[in-house]
């Protein structure tokens, strides 16, 4: 009897423990999902005065209203997080009000590959559900057969945009997408440390960067920071490394990986710069762990005050404002070797589906969104990098985006070889970044580059 009572008691205790467990689980899951959601809305809070600026008027609106008023199109715009979606809503509202063309705005999935497969499915089924869509800078090659040639209608406006991006969006002589906003690689450097070690200006060449990094590192280590490094970047085996490696190779005069449909990556200049990067890791100027760093992995080393130089995208500028290096860093163009300084292009384009039922109206919408006035609005409102050089030098734009100082914005933009690899871009990029990652992990570039080259050529056949 007594035992029975005991057992019951144990039973209730068990029950309570289970409840506690479930409650704790729920709390942890909630916290975790919230932190994921917070991480997803990485869009930095910047440009406080941004709210003041309004979307520009649509040129020639009356004529458009007469021609296309009442037509309805669907636009797959930016992901539903942060200011980007709000920008889309404001632009769509303005355009619809003034032209009478109804635009249904649908945000794309925030993960780039999910967005890619959404469009791939849409095109595979010849669906007319999407009229205008955002395209990553490396997709035009893959989607070209399914997109309208915008050259006849928008060729003149395209001339305003950076030539490198227009080349990227031109497949087989057809302009199949218009640049909307961009990104490009830049060099972050510690102003306080350069001054401390007697340097008046940031490095112009890779050799200079190596020498400065070595000297600063030695000094900081002697001063007590055993974990100080010279230079960090994105060295993990992923898309980011293809971008970084393109900058090294192109700035050393080693070409753009693929040229005129043939792989060119296996050349002495490419091998030399890649082996230089490898030697920095083995000498400890660059941390050994760099081969597993992505954007944030590299930025955190710099932001925690443990590196003199960082290669990253413009987003890191505002992201670093809340870290210990605030006010102690600046940006400039990346160094160069035998070639010129370059920056790999990232960013988004706008295309019109071949299966759209309202192509002319859709093209007019793209004309509006990729106009200088809208790019200026986007740059100030949402701190996106304009693809039109004249907008990038606009005073108000530079004020909102300090990394757009003319001497930086004018850097040569290089594009990843997507227009040659087309639908096989992912595969090609994987061959490149896996190979480069092997080099950084210790293999000699002269033994890895020939295999990258032959595998790329097999894809290109």
């Amino acid at each position: 009897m007594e035992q029975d009572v005991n057992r019951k008691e144990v039973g209730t205790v068990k029950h309570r423990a289970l409840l506690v467990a479930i409650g704790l689980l729920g709390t942890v899951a909630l916290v975790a999902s919230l932190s994921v959601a917070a991480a997803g809305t990485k869009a930095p809070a910047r440009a406080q005065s941004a709210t003041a600026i309004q979307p520009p008027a649509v040129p020639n609106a009356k004529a458009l209203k007469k021609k296309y008023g009442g037509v309805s199109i669907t636009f797959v715009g930016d992901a539903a997080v942060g200011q980007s979606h709000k920008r889309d809503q404001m632009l769509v509202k303005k355009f619809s009000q003034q032209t009478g063309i109804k635009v249904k705005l649908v945000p794309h999935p925030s993960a780039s590959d999910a967005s890619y497969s959404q469009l791939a499915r849409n095109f595979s089924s010849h669906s007319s559900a999407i009229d205008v869509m955002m395209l990553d800078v490396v997709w035009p090659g893959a989607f070209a057969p399914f997109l309208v040639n915008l050259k006849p209608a928008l060729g003149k406006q395209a001339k305003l945009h950076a030539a490198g991006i227009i080349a990227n969006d031109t497949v087989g002589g057809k302009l199949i997408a218009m640049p909307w906003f961009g990104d490009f690689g830049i060099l972050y450097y510690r102003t306080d440390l350069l001054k401390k070690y007697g340097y008046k200006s940031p490095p112009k060449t890779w050799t200079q960067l190596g020498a400065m990094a070595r000297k600063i590192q030695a000094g900081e280590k002697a001063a007590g920071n055993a974990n100080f490094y010279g230079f960090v970047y994105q060295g993990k085996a992923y898309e980011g490394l293809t971008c970084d490696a393109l900058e090294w190779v192109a700035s050393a005069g080693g070409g753009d990986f693929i040229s005129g449909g043939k792989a060119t990556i296996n050349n002495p200049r490419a091998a030399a710069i890649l082996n230089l990067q490898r030697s920095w890791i083995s000498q400890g100027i660059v941390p050994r762990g760099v081969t597993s760093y992505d954007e944030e992995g590299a930025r955190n080393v710099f932001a925690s005050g443990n590196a003199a130089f960082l290669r990253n995208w413009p987003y890191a500028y505002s992201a670093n404002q809340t870290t210990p290096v605030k006010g102690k860093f600046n940006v400039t163009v990346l160094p160069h070797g035998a070639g010129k300084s370059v920056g790999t292009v990232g960013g988004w384009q706008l295309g019109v589906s071949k299966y759209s039922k309202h192509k002319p109206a859709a093209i007019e919408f793209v004309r509006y969104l990729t106009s200088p006035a809208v790019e200026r609005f986007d740059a100030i409102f949402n701190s996106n990098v304009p693809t039109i050089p004249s907008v990038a030098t606009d005073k108000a734009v530079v004020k909102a985006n300090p990394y757009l100082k003319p001497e930086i914005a004018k850097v040569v933009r290089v594009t990843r070889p997507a227009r040659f690899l087309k639908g096989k871009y992912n595969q090609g990029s994987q061959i490149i970044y896996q190979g480069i990652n092997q080099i950084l992990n210790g293999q000699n570039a002269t033994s890895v580059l020939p295999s990258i080259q032959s595998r790329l050529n097999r894809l290109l056949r």
Partner: protein
Amino acid sequence: MTPTTEATTVGRPRLRHRRRRSALQRRQTRLAWVMLTPALVAVGIVAFYPLGTTVYQSFTDKQFLALEPTKWIGLANYKDLIHDGIFGDAIILTIKFTVITVAFEFVLGMIIALVVNSNFKGRGVMRAMMLVPWAIPTVVAAQMWAWMYNDVYGVINDAGVRLHLLSHNVAWISQPNTALGAVCAVDIWKTTPFVALLLLAGLQVIPGELYEAARVDGASAWQQFWRITVPLLRPAILVALIFRTLDALRVFDVFYVFFGNRADTQTMSIYAQNTIINGDVGYGAAISVAIFLIIGLFVVIYVTFIKVEEQ
């Protein structure tokens, strides 16, 4: 054979039955089928249809965004797969990972389950706390560990150097000789609680009288464990091992967060995913079928092994 009077009274149609079954039973059987139908349809749509499609596509040259129609190419994908060294490496890596993690998780899980099964103050809180690692989404946990492993600002290096366990910071994830250990540690940390929970459930149904009787007979704690606990725990052990082995063989997230697409750290699932994303859907489907068969093989091994022991 005539229908029972009961059946005729409720006006059921005459059915020829070999076996004698009451009308109530038949009615219940029919009701069961009716009630099961939605579930069966759901399983058919979400499980059998995709599986069938995958098997079908593995015999084709289907490409993402291809302009030419898909062709039936028979066993060509599977012939390529047999000679595919990358897939071979992926199988070896995945099995290494599975053996290491499942072994550690099982031993540690068993110890934890035995501890929290005994009577002590704060046992309820303890049981709740041990589940915390398991409650964190794997991708989040993996990213957290990646930062902890970092060779510049990671807490593991910092603590190791301060405590003089390490002479200098180690790039745990980047170096080939520490990479597998690093990734296994995360999985063990994360899923040991799950194994412990399953084993704990098994321990709780073992009647206390058995231990009392054993004590009266003078059995030592060690004997009690091997003669009572382990045999009676066998079903729970089987469930725990099958669940963990299946999960480990499909591992994707930790490896993907840690290494991206590094050539020497591709698991079977990462290779399948890459192949499909790269556009080669047919070959990717063949890889997926191969993974399905490999996992199936492990399940068969477990089930037969444990059954033989029972006899």
